[in-house]
């Protein structure tokens, strides 16, 4: 093993072996996944996300939500995902093909969000939670995303979009807290996180 060429060819072979085995094989299996068309209704699954929700996903990525929240439901009997009501079925590869960026996550410092749009349907709840997580959840470890909200003086009529905050969290009189467009997009994205459709490859009990 004294020659550069021999060593380099050997090293390149180990790279090729691993690359083919994992990257290329996965590409062959997953790269061509298509939406599933329900013949009866003509609907495509997973359903496409609305434009504002797609913008919200960008906010989710920019704020690094993935460092504390996963987006995957594991099969029954492995972990406790379904016992915690994080989804009625496991998530599969096809559930993810509609998005540009996939953030499965490897940490659950907060709960899984794969089906959070089914569990929480109130926009107000999300805005309160992002504004100050301790309002909804006593003892939450989530940081506040107050910078996604604007505190402004009420000019004439209060805004219809202003946050409905409990005592002790309200701004001073004559002021209101209004979500920025990024906060609104983020909430639409979270609301769009649902697994309320079936795919043929998902095993049923």
């Amino acid at each position: 093993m004294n020659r550069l060429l021999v060593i380099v060819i050997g090293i390149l072979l180990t790279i090729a072996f691993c690359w083919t085995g994992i990257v290329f094989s996965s590409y062959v299996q997953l790269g061509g996944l298509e939406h599933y068309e329900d013949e009866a209704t003509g609907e495509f699954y997973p359903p496409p996300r609305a434009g504002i929700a797609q913008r919200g996903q960008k906010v989710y990525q920019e704020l690094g939500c993935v460092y504390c929240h996963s987006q995957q439901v594991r099969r029954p009997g492995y972990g406790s995902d379904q016992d915690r009501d994080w989804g009625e079925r496991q998530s599969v590869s096809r559930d993810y093909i509609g998005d540009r960026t996939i953030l499965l996550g490897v940490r659950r410092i907060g709960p899984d969000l794969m089906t959070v749009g089914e569990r929480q349907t109130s926009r107000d709840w999300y805005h309160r939670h992002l504004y100050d997580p301790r309002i909804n959840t006593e003892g939450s470890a989530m940081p506040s995303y107050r910078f996604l909200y604007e505190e402004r003086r009420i000019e004439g009529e209060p805004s219809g979009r202003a946050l409905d905050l409990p005592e002790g969290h309200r701004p001073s009189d004559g002021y209101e807290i209004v979500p920025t467009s990024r906060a609104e997009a983020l909430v639409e994205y979270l609301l769009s996180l649902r697994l309320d459709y079936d795919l043929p490859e998902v095993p049923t009990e």
Partner: protein
Amino acid sequence: MSDSSSNPDYTKQGAAASGAIDRSMRAPVVLFAAAGVFWLLVGTLLALITSFKLHTPGFLGNWEWLTYGRVRPAYTTVFLYGWATNAGLAVGFWIMARLSRNVLQRGTILNTAAVFWNVGVLVGVAGIFFGDLTAREWLEMPGYAAPILMFAYVLIALWVVLTFQYRNSKYTYVSQWYLLAALFWFPAIFGTAQLMAVYAPARGVLQEVVGWWFAHNLYALWLTPIGLASVYYLLPKILGKPVHSYYLTSVAFWSYLVFAGWAGMHYLAGGPVPAWIISAGVTGALLVLFPVFIIGINHHRAMAGSFGMLRTSPALRFTYFAAVAFTTVSVVAAIAAFRGVKEIVHFTYFTDGLMQWGVYAWFTMAMFGALYYLLPRVLQRAWPSPTLISLHFWTSAAGIGLYVFAMCVGGWIQGLQMNNPEAYPEFVDITRNTLPWLVMASLGGLLLFVAHVAFAIHCLWLLLRPETAENRSMLTAEPKTMKVAAK
């Protein structure tokens, strides 16, 4: 390398030539090492903020750029690409030049590469703070930083290949094999990941497969081979005895390269990917133990009977700490990949504990050891303060020990609670129960901060110290050098 008498560095003539090589390497080694130490300080600060935020979510919470989801990726990026890679390159270049018996040629290539690499890291980290992060673990830098890094890397690779190709020694050494392996693996994984996870994200979960393939291999086939090159070079050199069994060493090298690249897929355990991918990961994590054991036998047999030298040689102390961490982290990682264990530790702080066990207790400590050995030789002056070295060693050893212990044990408990929805129906309670462990981890982080400040001050002191004859004379003999410095 199997026989110390065949190592020209051990002859009188070799010693003189080593000095010439060391002196010639001064500019690039100091450039990369100084950049590394600078990023180490920045990274430690960001790591502390990250750690505090976990148990005090309001800490520095009013600015978007300082939110947890920004500081954390900034810290990993600074640590991996700023500190670990700069330090690894400084050490790698020096070992390559010494073993190739080449006085530095075409040093401009390396100096230019140092500038571009660090500008690339700076652009990447700034991009993360501005919100352009990819949010893909260990690949967080925005896509526009990658071309700068790649340009720097081409220069680096060019220099290493030229230095190796035009070497003046009859032999090649195991450290050189590992350095060449790292040299070719990095562009393969970085290029693939940039292409398939950043520039043109692959369809669906495929980008997660590529992402974790990259992240694991950045550790397993970029940092680890550089660390192994350093340990394989320094242990025999400091101890003055050869590595056991040339044949086994080459078996370990090739089998490590074949198996290690597969082991990262356990990060997707239970997830929405085909089951064979996870199985491949578990198999890889298990098979890699074969070379790990051989490497461990190499290292630990070399140490046998020489433990007394740990007291006198700081370079050896750091290096052997790292070698022990490499063996243990590989074994624990293999155990943690198993289905039953993974079910408990997945999605918990255990993951972070294990990552730091590998990246810090193993790789970073190996780099500290190497820098303690090579910087005085390259600069031709001895370390000024044994006290600072001791402070650095004990605070970093205790700090990383405390951090890994807190995260692994706390993560294990967290996992048991997460899997027990009857006893712990409220998720927020589980997160709250991790608080004492997170505070303990932060204390570990504070110790590491002290360690790194001590190291940085010492490096600066060494750099500014005059190069005197008395200073230099401490460096003529090996391995007594370190004894002098440690007294």
